[in-house]
């Protein structure tokens, strides 16, 4: 037993430097840790998450969706669904926020080198994918073809609009957008993500599919990928679980022997199949 372990429950206080309204329900917060030294030493990997605190309200889990290759701030995009996220949405630039990060594992980007990558993001599930996508674009030569399929309920529910435009223009990646409900101005696809995925028909050869979104979308996307010939090792997903401690102690986030807060949130389908079906 050590005498003075670091206090894993104590957040770093941080300052919000910018708030971006992404969609009616999603705001992006760019934050900088108050301690310059802690900010400089802060190291994380694409896919890792953090617990954000509004003191007096509580904590919730969000992906650090800026890539480690861009470190002037840490970015979190938050969809308003309840109490804590509601309070977060009231915060402005200059306000204080608590950050416990980085937590969890990360995308296996090293073993993805040299492969084609298919990103399939639904709604706020685009946030973790954004981290990895930007990381890969910053290390473009390491990866093969990059395809992004991003879906949202309606055009105004698409987050990261400023970047989506840029992604559409790039000739070193393919970007396909879809919405469940189109509008007259909507230039892209209308249809559920799994159906559009089958339409684009990416080949499984030397390819990894990375998907994140609501549980129901993940379920049908995984089925579609299997129909397309992807095997369990070629499908990577990130899971959402209600979390408290974030460090594998409080016992809230387990699926069998695996604790999503420390062994996840990133899993291959092969790993998930070893665990009880509690997605």
């Amino acid at each position, binding site marked *: 037993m050590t005498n003075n*372990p670091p*206090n*894993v429950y104590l957040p770093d206080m941080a300052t919000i430097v910018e708030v971006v309204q992404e969609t009616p329900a999603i705001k992006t917060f760019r934050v900088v840790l108050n301690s310059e030294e802690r900010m400089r030493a802060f190291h994380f990997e694409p896919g890792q998450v953090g617990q954000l605190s509004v003191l007096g309200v*509580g904590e919730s889990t969000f992906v650090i969706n800026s890539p480690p290759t861009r470190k002037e701030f840490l970015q979190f995009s938050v969809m308003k*669904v309840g109490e804590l996220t509601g309070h977060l949405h009231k915060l402005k630039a200059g306000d204080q926020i608590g950050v416990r990060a980085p937590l969890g594992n990360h995308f296996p980007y090293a073993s993805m080198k040299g492969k084609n990558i298919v990103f399939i993001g639904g709604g706020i599930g685009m946030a973790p994918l954004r981290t990895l996508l930007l990381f890969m674009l910053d290390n473009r030569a390491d990866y093969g073809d990059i395809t992004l399929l991003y879906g949202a309920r309606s055009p105004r529910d698409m987050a990261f609009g400023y970047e989506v435009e840029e992604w559409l223009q790039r000739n070193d990646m393919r970007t396909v957008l879809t919405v469940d409900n189109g509008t007259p101005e909507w230039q892209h696809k209308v249809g559920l993500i799994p159906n559009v995925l089958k339409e684009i028909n990416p080949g499984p050869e030397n390819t990894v599919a990375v998907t994140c979104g609501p549980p129901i979308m993940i379920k049908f996307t995984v089925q579609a990928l299997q129909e397309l010939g992807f095997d369990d090792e070629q499908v990577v997903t990130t899971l959402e679980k*209600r979390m408290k401690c974030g*460090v594998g102690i409080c016992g809230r986030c387990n699926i069998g022997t695996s604790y999503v807060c420390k062994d996840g949130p990133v899993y291959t389908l092969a790993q998930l199949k070893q665990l*009880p079906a*509690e997605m």
Partner: protein
Amino acid sequence: MTTARFLKARDIAPWLEELSTAYTVLAPARHGDTVVFRDFNPANGIDMEHLSATPAKKALLPPCETLFEYKTTKTEEPPYKTAIELHPTLPEGKVLVFGARPCDARAMQIFDRVYDGNQARDPYYTARRNNATIVTLACDHQEETCFCDRVGGSPVDATGSDVLLTPLKAGYVAEALTDKGETLLNSTTFMKADGLKQEALNARHKMLEQVPDRSSFLDMERNLLSLFSDLGFWDKTAQACLSCGACTYLCPTCYCFNITDESHGDSGKRIRTWDNCMSSQFTLEGSGHNPRPTKAHRMRNRIGHKFSYYPQLHDKTLACVGCGRCISNCPVSFDIRNAVACAIQQADAAREHAHD
């Protein structure tokens, strides 16, 4: 080491009173009709006969504790800036658990692997643990609901204890097992008793002879695993369960907690409280999705955690010490032993079927 001393039954209270100056002493005492662990107070007496209804886990993990306090201040001039200061409140002071049972002491080691393991360390737990001394009372009988012998323990097991007390006629032989225990036995309340070591050993042997010969629940983590996909089995198992969670609050090995904030104007605190996986809200996500929507899912997790997940992660040690508190206190008499035995049977049958 292993100094032995003799403690006369009537000297217990004075001894604990003496210790109360240096320690917070928890001891089993009556509270109405039940025996529970409570702060020692001579007026409440001590109950050395019955297994307490509540375990001693609060010595290491209180039902509610403050992790830190915070204070918000605003600058007086515009633009109003807010600053927030955090003050962690690490526990101080020594705790003595008197009259823990062998199952209680072993249960604390089940906590240790999680809270003071190789990965994350919980500083609040570690502080309490380093300052805790456990005086265990060997059992002289097993209740009908006891089954420590089936999960790797025994009614006279000293694992995890600093001192082991063995009841003899007029009192207790106290044997020190650690340095902390040695220090305790220095008290002048005790009589020298190295000669009684053998008698204590004999008494414990006699107790062990009374333990019925019955099948063990060890080495079954794979068996259970084979049942995980059979939700029908868990549905049947959990049918009567009310999801009240009493079993987990009274269990010495259940350690899940919640973290919430309490605010009072500009200041407040972050607290943690016991929580339990039998409640439907435990895994309810912000989106409204619940990965453990039914009692069957939750029962599978509770039993799975104790008899399969934890042993797989921690050297095959079960996360159940067989104290039987969940059985004797369940409003619908759910018996975890039956559930586990059924699971073994079912898995064995399935395996034989596969071999046919």
